[in-house]
């Protein structure tokens, strides 16, 4: 049976209608996703830009009629209540984040180099240890950590937090680096070894440069883990040594706190990882999809 021009036209029209319905549906879904993703961030700005201290009520205005940067000013000059040491806390967060990042990359890359490139026998034990770490949620270990850090003489010490973050970030680093290292041909190592290079030289001259995308992913992961964590700094540090992430959490139901300044501080605090993620998104995308190193 051959299709008449009339049926052809009907088929084409229903196809076009379907396409248009799909297009309309995805626009609706897109708007829903946009509102869903941005609502709490919008709420942060709404509170932070309110001229009145401690104003968290929503009075029907979609944007503050008189947006005020008083909250932000209070944070930057450290005049707002509870935020007298904001920059000190920010520095603590930065120190913990950077130290966690560097130690994780160093320890993780050394261990996974030994297992995946030096053909260390029983190397799979190390991989299993890394996997096993994830069987125990980190929050379940906070009480023993608190006791042990006290025993080590590290209570209220930034290094206690760094140690905890490194312990939970290195397993990811090892698994990730081992996956990625498979993409680098062994012939490169062998050629260098034949030419008399030591394993240290192979590590420095071949492994590290070729693993750069994966190392970038590991570095961002470790930095974000440390920067965004709440529980460990909250428990292991005393008030004067606190990080920014903790301060807002500890006052989270205190209606007397100056919430415009608190939210301004929150906005300032969450910006660096977002900026970093977007600056390095190409590396992250390459690392995540395990592309062949260029």
């Amino acid at each position, binding site marked *: 049976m051959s299709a008449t021009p009339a049926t052809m036209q009907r088929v084409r029209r229903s196809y076009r209608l379907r396409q248009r319905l799909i297009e309309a549906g*995805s626009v609706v*879904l*897109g708007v829903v*996703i*946009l509102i869903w*993703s*941005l*609502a*709490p961030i919008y*709420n*942060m700005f709404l*509170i932070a830009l309110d001229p009145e201290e401690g104003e*968290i009520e*929503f009075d029907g205005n979609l944007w503050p009629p008189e947006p005020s940067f008083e909250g932000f000013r209070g944070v930057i000059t450290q005049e707002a209540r509870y935020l007298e040491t904001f920059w000190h806390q920010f520095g603590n967060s930065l120190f913990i984040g950077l130290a966690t990042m560097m130690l994780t990359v*160093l*320890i993780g890359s*050394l*261990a996974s*180099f*030994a297992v995946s490139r*030096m*053909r*260390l026998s029983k190397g*799979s034990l190390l*991989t299993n240890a890394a*996997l*096993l770490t*994830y*069987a125990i*949620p*980190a*929050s*379940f270990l*906070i*009480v*023993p950590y608190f006791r*042990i850090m006290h025993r080590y003489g590290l209570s209220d010490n930034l290094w206690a937090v760094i*140690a905890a973050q490194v312990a939970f970030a*290195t397993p*990811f680093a090892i*698994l*990730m680096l*081992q996956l990625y290292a498979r993409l680098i041909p062994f012939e490169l190592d062998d050629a260098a070894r034949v030419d008399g290079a030591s*394993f240290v030289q192979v590590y420095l001259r071949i492994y590290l440069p070729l693993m750069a995308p994966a190392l970038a*992913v590991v570095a961002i*992961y470790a930095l974000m*883990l440390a920067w*965004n964590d*709440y*529980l*460990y700094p909250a428990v292991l540090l005393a008030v004067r040594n606190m990080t920014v*992430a903790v301060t*807002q*959490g500890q006052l*989270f139901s205190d209606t007397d706190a100056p919430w415009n300044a608190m939210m301004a501080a*929150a906005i300032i*605090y*969450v910006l660096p*990882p977002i900026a970093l993620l977007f600056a390095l998104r190409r590396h992250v995308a390459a*690392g995540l999809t395990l592309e062949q190193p260029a």
Partner: protein
Amino acid sequence: MSSTQQVFAAGPPISVQGSRWPRGYGQLHGADLRWAIAFVLPYAAVFFVFVVYPFGDALWMAGKPSLYVELIGDRFYLPAVVNTLLFVGLGVNLKMFSALLVSGFFIRRRWWIRALLAVFILPWALAAAQACVSFHWMLQEGGLVNGVISALFGIEGPIWFNNRWLGLGADITVYIWKWMPFWTVIFLAARMRIPPDIYDSAEVDGATGIRRFLHVTFPLLANLYLLCTLLSTLWTVGDFTTVYLVSGGGPASSTDVLATLGFHYAFDLSKPALGIAAAMSALPVLIPIAIVLMRRLQTSEVEL
């Protein structure tokens, strides 16, 4: 922190097998062996000092059977177990299934969908504590959510944190908001690996729309989906921040999960052993999941 650990699954082709190197390669010896040991030593030290020792300490502290009798007798413990089951069961499954569906939306090649993806992953980059505090204020009396409800429908919204089920629902919603983007990206990467000719031949056979999803996409992603769900379950049991900073366990500890209840026992009531016991009582569920996961990771090559 455990929730941040979810990033671990970043490489979709997860398979961790020990020996993959070419044959005919000798054992290490002499200086090389010493170097290899020196390279592994820092990680081994971190693992033993900061993972094995705290865990051993926890087991030793939570070893007394009398602690568990005390736990069962505590009126907050059994509700917390129920809350944990609901939080993990509903949270993980709703999140994973939504992530799988939404990844199908983001795979469409439109410029505005790509731009939307950048906005969509913002929750993942946002610090959990700050996001949770913002949600907390949004849901308070006079907050954004009830303001919008009264503006749109002219009715008073509920007092969210005055009711156990509304509070727990808020916790689960925030949890999904925070962690769905990450898993969506994982599923998106997996979908992009499906060769287009599979879809072409499916279309010739008449599989489009929902049938294509059920008979082509889902079977291809099923293995990864199961693996991610198991991993996410392990991590969600340990999620402390969401419940602690959104509902705060309130009203009257009725929305506490095991992680926050253990914290409450240990630091507010000064009963550290009881706090550890509350957390450790989840191990009989966690360890089998971890073993299944390790076996699957070792035996199957999880491509796609």
